[in-house]
Structure formats: structure tokens, C-alpha cells
């Protein structure tokens, strides 16, 4: 069984208030490493067997249709062992 992972992030030009809030909270806790933080979504999709390229293309289509809103978000599709 393999896992297909879809990561969805807001486009860089879209304000990410949650990321800004996290980035403001980190130094309050003594974590001073972050120049900035962006928050996104991760989808884990289980499939039987090794994913085929057709399957990955179908996942990409689903990501474009439903999982991400291409107006404000970008996505990547990858296989995780």
C-alpha cells in the first residue's frame, strides 16, 4: 500500500494570517529561528499497490478541482513510501 501526499499552500502573494500568528508566537516561547512562517494543508491518500502515473494524474486533477483552490493556492503531488 502506498501513500500519495498532496501539499496545499497559499500562494506567496496571499496574506496568511495564521502563519503570521504562529510566527509571532514562536519568539514569545524563545524560538528565535523563524524569519517567517506559512501554514498549509497536507492530504494523505492511501492507494493499493504502487501508484501509476495515470493515478497520480488523476490525483492532480482532484487536487486542482477540490483539494486546492487554484485562485489562491498551489499544490504538489508526491508518493511517500
Amino acid at each position, binding site marked *: 500500500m502506498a501513500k500519495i501526499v498532496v501539499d496545499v499552500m497559499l500562494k506567496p502573494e*496571499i*496574506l496568511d*494570517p*495564521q502563519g503570521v*500568528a504562529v510566527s509571532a508566537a514562536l519568539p514569545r516561547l524563545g524560538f528565535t529561528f523563524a524569519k517567517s512562517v506559512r501554514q498549509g494543508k497536507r492530504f494523505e491518500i492511501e492507494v493499493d499497490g504502487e501508484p501509476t502515473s495515470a493515478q497520480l494524474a488523476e490525483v492532480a486533477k482532484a487536487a486542482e478541482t*477540490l483539494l486546492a*483552490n487554484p*485562485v489562491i493556492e498551489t499544490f504538489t503531488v508526491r508518493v511517500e513510501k
Partner: protein
Amino acid sequence: MKVGVVTFPGTLDDRDAARAVTHAGTTAISLWHNDADLKGVDAVILPGGFSYGDYLRCGAISRFAPVMEKIIDAANSGMPLLGICNGFQVLCEAHLLPGALTRNHELHFLCRDQKLEITNNQTAWTSSYSVGQKIVIPLKNGEGSFQCDDATLAALEGEGRIIARYVGENPNGSRNQIAGITNARGNVVGLMPHPEHAIDTLTGPTADGLGFFTSVLKALVK
């Protein structure tokens, strides 16, 4: 004249929207998200709330409800369609309107009476107002920040497709203080604040919101 009001699982403001329609002198017809039937209505309102629990993104799942397929076809043929709050989010997810609604820039859920300026009275839903008119209606949302790319914003501004702007401090970080927009044809309108909660002073802060519902009546009898 019949105006359909859609109920998705998690819709909150369908009753107030139906009441506003009735108050304006039109007949309200309830439409269920799972019915691919518009029951012969002449216009449709997508009311506010948290359809499908706002899961994934606000409006992202509702946009694929069976009733939406019919609504999208009808709107593309010119049927008046108003999306309020969550309904506006559904219209953007359905690509009937450009852009997207994102988390308020201060992250807080807002609930307050909000002053707006009407900036376009040539749509099916705003003809009862005059351009420049100030109205006060409730604003209540967590994800009401209108965002789009620069080219889309320039097009909306250039074509006069911004129908209302927030007056005073920007409540949610919307680009150019945008509270509502329309499509090129003027039959589809999305508005973040709630006119249906301000149709009489018994139940609302003002009766300023009634104009949206009397406007569509005028558009339908024309």
C-alpha cells in the same frame, strides 16, 4: 415571482433570507442542496452559514452540491443569483465570481453593524440604491477577506464591478475595502455582510438591507 433560498447542511441564514424575500413582496421557495431541481424559481439566494462545516475551505464542498449544477447553468443564462457571506464564498469556489474569501487579517470572527458604501446600482440586486449611498447592515464572518490577483482587481475596478465597499477601517483585510462584487453581466452578486438581517428595525439595526430584495423584484418584473 419566486425567489429560491438554498439550504445546505450547516446553512444558518436561510430563514432570514426567506423572510427578507417575503418582506420585499416576493415569494420565497426553499431549495434543498441535494435536489437537482430549482422548482421554477426566477432568482436564487445562497444564504450565510457554515455549509458542510466549512470543511476543506468555506464553500468548497457546497459548490459541488447537486442543486449548484442547476444554479450555475441558470446563472450563466442570466438568472439573478445573490450569495451572502458563505453564499459569496460558494460563488467564488464555483468560479461564478472571481477571487476568493480568506481568513480575516486579524484572525478574529467579527460580528458587528458595518457601514458600507454602495458603488454600483446597475446590478439585479442593487438597483434600489443610489451610487454613493451609505448603509449599515450586520457583518459576521471569520473568512471575509476578499483576495484576488492584481489583474483581477484592476479588471473589477475598471469595469465597475465592485458593488459595495467597507467604510472606515477595513474590518477583515479585503483588498480595496471590497465588501461585494458582481459578474460582468450584473446578475450574479456576492456580498460578505448580511442585508437579510437588516430589513426592519424590529429585528435589525436598520432597514437598509431590504433594497437588495426589492431590487431583484424590479429586475424580475422588468
